[in-house]
């Protein structure tokens, strides 16, 4: 920590979430009355945020190198917020105190969110023009950006969860944006989609809450750095093994990722979420919010036991492959990108899972997964925005079968989309290559190091998924931009999008090209040193020794990562070359699947040598299964939703017959009792009262006779009384 952050740096970091929050407050209350409905306000705010995050990224890059770049405001006098509750037994009062955590991962993610959010804001100024709830849209995406930036900066799991939930809410509101517009043709679908997204992610969020509760119960803290330290101590105390409760809690935390990052089987909400406006899909459902699940894995990695990592690997691999197969059958341009996003998130999750078993290069999978999260944010946001531009240009037509030949009509959109397609396919020199190559390499290292069956499984799934990714992405490009126009009317009216949209597209496309590695500057095309790696780990290429910077002071090789050093001591000849071998093989595999995918797409959709209809007919039931998304929605509908409905109907029956019957019975009993009481009241109690009243009345009428009002009579009585008393006195 040679370069502590200055107080200016801390204040800038604090301003990062504060600016979109302030923009939200102004926009939601006064947006309607501002000129241009106030869209310039959040956008200008996001421009400032982008500048700050990029500046802070360069601060981090300048300090990074051989030492971890890791700053916690709680320990370094930065901004700290006390929570309402402080446990008495914690003497230093650090319990449930929220501060800012700014490390390599946070710096990278913060810059990604800042940059992507700004361009999405800019894009929205063109795309959402004329929308009925234009100002509300900008207010909502501002608040969403606030939540995402806050999540990245949180130094504790509790605040991460709070922002996580806030993002879930904003996702719900933004997916359902058109459900409040009575003129929208898809008002019902939008309403259903936002409800589905909210409820499905809720399953994962509940799991995450359970996991958090379990960790808090044992560690008494939510602070990430404390949790890592305590987890390391716990593992060391347990003889190098993770205790069972940590495996269970880790699985629960991973449940949060499954929900938020749309992993199998909770992925079903993400394709439906495409009902939201396209900028929302680009920002929330491609670049930032769905990446938060992967970010959570990155933040909690030392807490996950090797068993959890195996589950993570399998779930990620399955998701990557199965979403990629579906992606090949979709005709909706946004639908393809949605399944592509699920598939790519599967890549990231699987990569983090394989980090546990890779022996050649310590932690390669972890860094690869997080790096892919960063590069994916750039090119997928750009792809979505390009798709939005196409949809905008084609007057809200989303079906690719009606497009075609748009290359000449929309040259800039085509350029941006082509660059990002090459990036997602993993073409060398493009950003996706550097991260995807490392993911495959990590899987290879598990295979070569005999790290269990999950390695070969992940490798096969991911290689196939990568091939299919290339295939369906080029299918999208060829169907949309090449060939003859299939719908002359749409083609005739298609036009290039306005300036703000095109600027955003080209900016993000250049990030899709250079965001992984500025190879143009140093000529290191194969990417041994990428900027992200210099923030997160250090590899000594002479000795092959690696060191991670993400969790300073934590030795992951003693926890959940297979130790290369131990393996090397066990079999030095073999292990020394694993890292090198894996990289070579990964390069061959990724280039091989890239070529296969491109050739396939060219044959099918550009040259039309093979008729897709014949192939689908040959595949028969397999194709229908894939085209129907493996019937997952139907299965969920049949099991969970029907089950819930049956359960609720049973409960209604119980409620109506048994509970209501009991209530009615009690009612009758009380009514009978009431009759008895009323009789007693009317006859006995009232009789007594009337008796008392009657007696009093009789007495009164007797005494009233004495009451003549004649003063002299009263005096006579008084005198008589006095005489009587005197007589009694004398006589006694």
């Amino acid at each position: 920590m040679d370069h502590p952050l200055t107080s200016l740096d801390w204040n800038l970091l604090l301003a990062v979430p504060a600016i979109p929050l302030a923009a939200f407050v102004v926009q939601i209350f006064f947006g309607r009355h501002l000129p241009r409905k106030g869209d310039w306000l959040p956008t200008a705010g996001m421009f400032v945020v982008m500048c700050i995050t990029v500046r802070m990224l360069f601060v981090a890059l300048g300090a990074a190198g051989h030492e971890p770049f890791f700053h916690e405001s709680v320990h370094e006098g930065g901004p700290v917020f006390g929570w309402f509750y402080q446990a008495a037994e914690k003497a230093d009062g650090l319990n449930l105190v929220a501060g800012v955590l700014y490390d390599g991962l946070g710096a990278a993610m913060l810059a990604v969110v800042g940059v992507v959010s700004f361009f999405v804001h800019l894009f929205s100024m063109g795309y959402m023009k004329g929308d009925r709830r234009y100002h509300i849209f900008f207010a909502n995406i501002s608040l969403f950006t606030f939540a995402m930036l806050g999540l990245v900066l949180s130094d504790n799991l509790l605040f991460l969860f709070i922002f996580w939930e806030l993002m879930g809410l904003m996702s719900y509101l933004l997916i359902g944006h058109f459900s409040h517009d009575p003129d929208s043709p898809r008002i019902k679908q939008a309403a259903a989609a936002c409800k589905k997204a909210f409820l499905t992610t809720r399953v994962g969020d509940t799991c995450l809450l359970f996991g958090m509760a379990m960790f808090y119960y044992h560690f008494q803290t939510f602070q990430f750095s404390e949790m890592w330290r305590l987890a390391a101590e716990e593992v060391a105390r347990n003889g190098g093994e993770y205790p069972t409760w940590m495996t269970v809690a880790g699985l629960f935390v991973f449940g949060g990722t499954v929900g938020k990052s749309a992993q199998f089987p909770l992925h079903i909400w993400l394709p439906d979420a495409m009902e939201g406006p396209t900028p929302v899909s680009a920002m929330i459902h491609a670049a930032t919010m769905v990446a938060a699940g992967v970010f959570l894995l990155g933040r909690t990695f030392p807490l996950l036991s090797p068993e959890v990592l195996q589950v993570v690997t399998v779930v990620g691999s399955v998701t990557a492959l199965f979403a990629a197969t579906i992606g090949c059958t979709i005709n909706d341009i946004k639908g393809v990108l949605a399944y592509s996003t699920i598939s790519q998130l599967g890549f990231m999750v699987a990569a983090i899972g394989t980090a546990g078993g890779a022996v050649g290069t310590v932690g390669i999978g972890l860094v690869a997964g997080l790096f892919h999260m960063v590069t994916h944010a750039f090119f997928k946001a750009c792809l979505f925005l390009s798709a939005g531009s196409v949809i905008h240009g084609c007057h809200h037509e989303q079906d690719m079968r009606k497009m075609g030949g748009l290359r000449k009509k929309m040259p800039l959109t085509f350029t941006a989309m082509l660059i990002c397609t090459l990036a997602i396919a993993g073409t060398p020199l493009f950003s996706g290559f550097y991260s995807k190559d490392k993911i495959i390499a990590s899987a290879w290292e598990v295979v070569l190091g005999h790290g269990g069956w999950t390695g070969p499984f992940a490798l096969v799934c991911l290689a196939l998924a990568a091939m299919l990714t290339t295939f369906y992405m080029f299918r999208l490009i060829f169907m949309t931009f090449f060939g003859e126009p299939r719908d002359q009317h749409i083609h005739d009216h298609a036009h290039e999008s306005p300036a703000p949209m095109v600027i955003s597209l080209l900016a993000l496309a250049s990030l899709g090209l250079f965001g992984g590695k500025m190879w143009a500057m140093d000529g290191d095309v194969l990417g041994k040193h990428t900027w992200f790696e210099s923030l997160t780990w250090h590899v000594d290429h002479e000795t092959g020794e690696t060191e991670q910077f993400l969790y300073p002071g934590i030795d992951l090789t003693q926890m959940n990562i297979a130790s290369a050093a131990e393996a090397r001591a066990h079999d030095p000849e073999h292990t020394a070359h694993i890292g090198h071998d894996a990289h070579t093989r990964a390069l061959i595999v990724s280039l091989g699947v890239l070529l296969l995918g491109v050739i396939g797409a060219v044959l099918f959709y550009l040259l039309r040598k093979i008729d897709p209809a014949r192939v689908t007919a040959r595949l028969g039931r397999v194709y229908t299964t894939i085209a129907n998304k493996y019937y997952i929605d139907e299965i969920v509908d049949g099991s969970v939703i029907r089950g819930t409905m049956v359960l609720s109907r049973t409960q209604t029956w119980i409620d109506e017959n048994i509970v209501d019957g009991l209530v009615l019975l009690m009612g009758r009993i009380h009514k009978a009792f009431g009759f008895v009481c009323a009789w007693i009241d009317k006859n006995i109690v009232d009789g007594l009262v009337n008796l008392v009243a009657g007696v009093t009345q009789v007495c009164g009428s007797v005494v009233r006779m004495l009451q003549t009002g004649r003063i002299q009579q009263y005096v006579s009585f008084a005198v008589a009384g006095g005489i009587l008393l005197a007589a009694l006195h004398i006589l006694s």
Partner: protein
Amino acid sequence: MALGAYIGVSAALFALGLICIISRRNILYVLFGVEMILNAASINFAAFNRFNGGGLEGRVFVVFIIILAAAESAIALAIVLNVYHLMKTVKPSEADFLRE
């Protein structure tokens, strides 16, 4: 003269006053009766004072009673006037609305 004589006069005066209050039909006579009773009390004070050392206390009381009686008659006469205005009678047997 012995104390008994004074007490006798006083008792007689008291009795006369009382009879006057109870029996007379005109309210003015009732007031006369009240005055007589007060005077009976004064005689008692004077008598006891004389036979009990001859200090000033009794005499002061008598003076007070005379002043009191004057004040009382003034107020009583005002009440009588009001009663007459209200009921057009000064007969106590007819002014019987205390009964109400």
